[in-house]
């Protein structure tokens, strides 16, 4: 039974850790500049430069 309590409490500690990390990330403006990345996927790929003729 001791192992059970240890496991559950350990798991809850880690889970709460993730929650705190998430709240922290929102508060510190983690996701403020997310617009650019969502737009960049829409850009057409650059095609290679045509060979330069001398």
């Amino acid at each position, binding site marked *: *039974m001791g*192992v*059970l309590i240890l*496991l*559950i409490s350990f*798991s809850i500690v*880690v*889970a709460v850790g*993730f929650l705190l990390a*998430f709240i922290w*990330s929102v508060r*510190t*403006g*983690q*996701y403020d500049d*997310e*617009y650019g*990345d*969502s*737009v*960049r*996927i*829409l850009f057409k*790929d*650059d*095609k*290679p*430069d045509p060979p330069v003729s001398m």
Partner: protein
Amino acid sequence: MENPTFYYDNKIVKSFAYATLFWGVIGMLVGLYAALQFIWPGLTFNIPYTTFGRIRPIHTNAVIFAFVGNGMFTGIYYSLQRLTKARMFNDVLSKVHFWGWQLIIVLAALSFAFGITTGKEYAELEWPIDILVALIWVVFGWNMLGTIIKRRTQHIYVAIWFYIATFVTVAILHIVNSIAIPVSLFKSYPIYAGVQDALVQWWYGHNAVAFFLTTPYLGLMYYFLPKAANRPVYSYKLSIIHFWALIFLYIWAGPHHLLYSSLPNWAQSLGVVFSIMLIAPSWGGMVNGLLTLRGAWDKVREDPVLKFMVVAVTAYGMSTFEGPMMSLKSVNAISHFTDWTVGHAHIGALGWNGFLTFGMLYWLIPVLFNTKIYSKKLANTHFWLGTLGIIMYAVPLYWGAITQALMWKEFTPEGMLRYPNFLETVTQIIPMYATRAIGGGLYITGVLFGVVNIIKTVKTGKFVGDEAASAPALVKAGGKAAGESTHRWLERKPVLFMILAVVVILIGGLIEIVPMYLIRSNIPTISSVGPYTPLELHGRDIYVREGCYTCHSQMIRPFRSETERYGEYSKAGEFVYDHPFQWGSKRNGPDLAREGVVTGRQYKPNSWHYQHMLNPQALNVQSIMPSFKWLISNKLDISTTARKVKVMQFLGVPYPEGYDKIANQDLIKQATEISENLKASGIQCDPDKEIIAVIAYLQRLGTDITRTGPAVSFPLSSNK
């Protein structure tokens, strides 16, 4: 400075796209065939390979792992290269992945037809194929992570996170659930038994839905929907929250498949709570997808690609609302074991996965072939046939499910079951099964139109196998840049990111599974419950082989309507020697958990079982069960008895030391008794036939707790 030139591998994308269509058609046709068997049971033609018990795993595995699997790889191989601005890590790995996966599909279909199965839903593959799946999956992950590492972009787009979570989680689920001890090349016993096997199986089963049918397709949605609409996802922030919340919550929800079963109540409640919480991230994702189209709904009217995607995302929203509702115990009391589950699954499979796949392919194929879709009109026809098909598939099943569940539960004023004959509740909903089959037929007709349209498109286009692109090389930056936030830094670290994702996933899994092994009180031992006799063990293996669990449950829930119909409700301690558990998830026929209890309502004599397997319709004209007449002519293979007993001993089943050597003596003795009993009823059946073993198993079911005195002991002659 000139940017380096590189080439995207379009050939592998094309291969996966063709495989998606090919297996999609096959998988759906098998599904239609299974659906028609509900109306015309004779469609099995009385041969083993076509019975529902063998066809159903072929259908489910083909649609999930072949159709959706290849669909997922099509989308991942296309989008990952563009998102990372890099060719796939290694062309050989890509090819090994592709051909390995197709080989697995063929082996799976063949092995299920031949009755080679573990009897665990969506994980029916036997151990050699399981190992192959694990290897090919690692090849896929290696190829994907290699591509991510050599990428030319700093940022890892949200779709890629979903791909990574898919790879990692499916690998863990598959390995943990498939651990088994081989009896032969084609047969193994899982190391888990009874309640624990059920928990591991549905932890896997539910998360197969989550991480094979959901997360990769969400990744595809976050790439292909914005691409098709040519506008960015509504909220990138929401997509990040969506990802973390979803992978954290999904892994806990498995026990909702086992409500009111013998699973400990705390584990059931945990599953319910997390299932309800899942609405939030799921709907966050749905809203994010639909709102991406804000201001672009005029495009939806014009573009079949967007039509498919809109219905796909809507179906995702519907089934992720319905799922949590079905996880409520009061709703589950009605929905479980009925066609509601089947309807729910098909909203997901036909709507979400199917329509997103076709939306993606209608966008992707013209792009790959530098052309336009051959016929927009045909694509629209496909769309409408599919949509109508989904509705005609699901609505009758919901209707039939509620009808049937209410019939199961209805009592007369005198307190007797109104419909004590299970068959009545099946016959009542046959028209619903017929309508369902029409719905499925419409959907497949649409798919066939789609295939024609795509073939025509391919013919008009010009395919470029290696598409040139250029992008600046990525400047490797180790630590965090000044002013950079941690998540942004993490996004550039795929391996670390993967490890963190594993940690998040494992917390959920461990907290539910580990305690089960630690607390003995979770499996109360019942002194009268003993191991199966060698003959019963063989019978049980035949029960698994024939897929009886696809139509018959072995789990009596603690409701009066069930205890009246079937007998005493099932206890966790009754299943401790069940490798694998056979609780089932759907009742197309009655529950069999107390089949052998002589004083029970379900009890049938040996002769009845013999006649019933030979020709079910001879006993019940309206029965939809197929004939299993080969059991009567097939000789039981007793050469494996010793090995089976040994494996069971290894798994902790208490047969006495050295019993494997004398087990066949007990087997023959018990078989002879049954054969003589049949003879007394006027049936001539040699004791060495498979039917004898099946009868022995069925007559053992549920009897142990009615025994007075100790459990059966071995050898059998030691029992008085």
